């Protein structure tokens, strides 16, 4: 369960505070795969980051006893001069994994990412697709209560996308996802409930379809 209590998030600008969220109170029940919708700049990623504990409300508080992944598909957390293998080891060490577990993670990521000999090359020689594959595989290896996914389901070629989706579906059997996406098909497929961010307000829908309908509604030219 995730509980938001009177959460506001704003950024100071020349013209005063620019609110992304304004006094939002909301309870997200357990065992719900949540899709987050909203226009560009509505604060979807900010909300996602706050739920994951890597950004913080300006006012109010967020409570949860669950564990959260880092934003999935994150390639920025890699050190360019280190190899793929070294980067995988680094993330495992942060999470306090034993050498045995680290080896398992390496095997898994190496198999999943299909980047061959590049696995032992510095990350800076990777294409962006290769980086995403590595990062995606790494996120899938770890166990969290919630996976945080920020628009990264469209990496790689069709073949790889299918593989990624299959693995993700297996993963969802065991954990929940918080997903930001503009792809309605993906949201319908993976999420149960949805929230819509619009003009600083948050609307919660028990059914993702209702959220999508509402989102389509606000995007209609008036």
């Amino acid at each position, binding site marked *: 369960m995730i509980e938001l209590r009177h959460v506001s998030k704003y950024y100071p600008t020349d013209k005063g505070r620019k609110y992304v969220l304004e006094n939002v109170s909301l309870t997200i029940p357990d065992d719900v795969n949540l899709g987050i919708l909203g226009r560009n700049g509505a604060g979807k990623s900010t909300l996602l*980051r706050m739920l*994951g*504990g*890597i*950004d*913080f409300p300006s006012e109010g508080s967020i409570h949860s006893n669950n*564990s*959260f992944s*880092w*934003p999935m598909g*994150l390639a*920025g*957390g*890699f*050190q360019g*001069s*280190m190899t793929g293998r*070294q980067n995988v080891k*680094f*993330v495992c*060490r*942060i*999470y*306090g994994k034993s050498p045995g577990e680290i080896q398992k993670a390496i095997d898994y990521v190496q198999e999943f990412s299909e980047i061959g000999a590049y696995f032992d090359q510095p990350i800076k020689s990777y294409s962006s697709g290769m980086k995403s594959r590595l990062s995606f595989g790494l996120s899938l290896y770890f*166990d*969290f*209560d919630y996976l945080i996914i920020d628009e990264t389901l469209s990496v790689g070629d069709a073949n790889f996308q299918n593989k990624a989706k299959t693995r993700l579906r297996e993963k969802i059997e*065991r*954990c929940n996802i918080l997903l930001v996406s503009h792809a309605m098909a993906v949201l319908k497929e993976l999420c149960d409930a949805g929230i819509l961010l619009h003009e600083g307000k948050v609307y919660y829908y028990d059914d993702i379809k209702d959220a999508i309908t509402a989102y389509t509604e606000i995007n209609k030219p008036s």
Partner: protein
Amino acid sequence: MKAVHRSSFEIFSSVVSALFLREIQTRFGTKKGGYFWALFDAMLMVLIFAGLKSLVAEKSMPGIDFPVFLASGFLAFFMFKNIVNGAMGAFSANAALFNYRQVRPFDTLVSRVLVEILVSTMATLAFIGIGLYFEFNIAVKDFSMVILAVAWLVLFAFGFGLFSAVMATFFENYAKIVQVIMTPLLFISALMYTVESLPQALREVILYNPLVHFIEMIHGNFFTTLTTEYVDYTYMFFWTFIPLFAGLYLYRASEKRIIST
């Protein structure tokens, strides 16, 4: 499928050691010449000033091998400088890692300080090797006091580095100012001369520089013919703990902002 619960200290130590290994790998990876650069600064200074001194050919420090005098001071000075610079850049260089919620800005700073301590230790060992090979007199008068002085200098550098890291996050020009100050500091930190050897008026001015006290404490305990009479321990104490506590306070107050910017 709950993740195993870990205490905050367990998380801290696994994060710091992961960051430490990461820094070492980037720094001393193949083709980087990291080992060479670790020695370079201090070695260059010793060669320049020992060379200059031999040109002038005056014998102002009887009983002391001048290169040893230079090396002991410069190694300490560069350790201070590298810790401060490393700490000051720790947050911005590792900002991407704050996406992993276990990684706190403070951890990146601690790991960088540890790396600098390791590098300085290696440089010192290399200098000792060189000193032995060329049969310099590297006997130490009071070894434990030298170690104490160096450890105290590490604490000073850590506190000042922490304070600077927070300031540099919020004031763009702060880091530049510190870096600009570091260069003249090389000449006014009693590295190529002793405080004793200076004229009275200059002596009084230079003693406002806290580094002078640390360097004099090292020199005075290293060489039998030198003393620590100009070292003001109270002054060193203030310079250690005011930045340290100010840094800790500012860090606590702004940790979330550092993570999210």
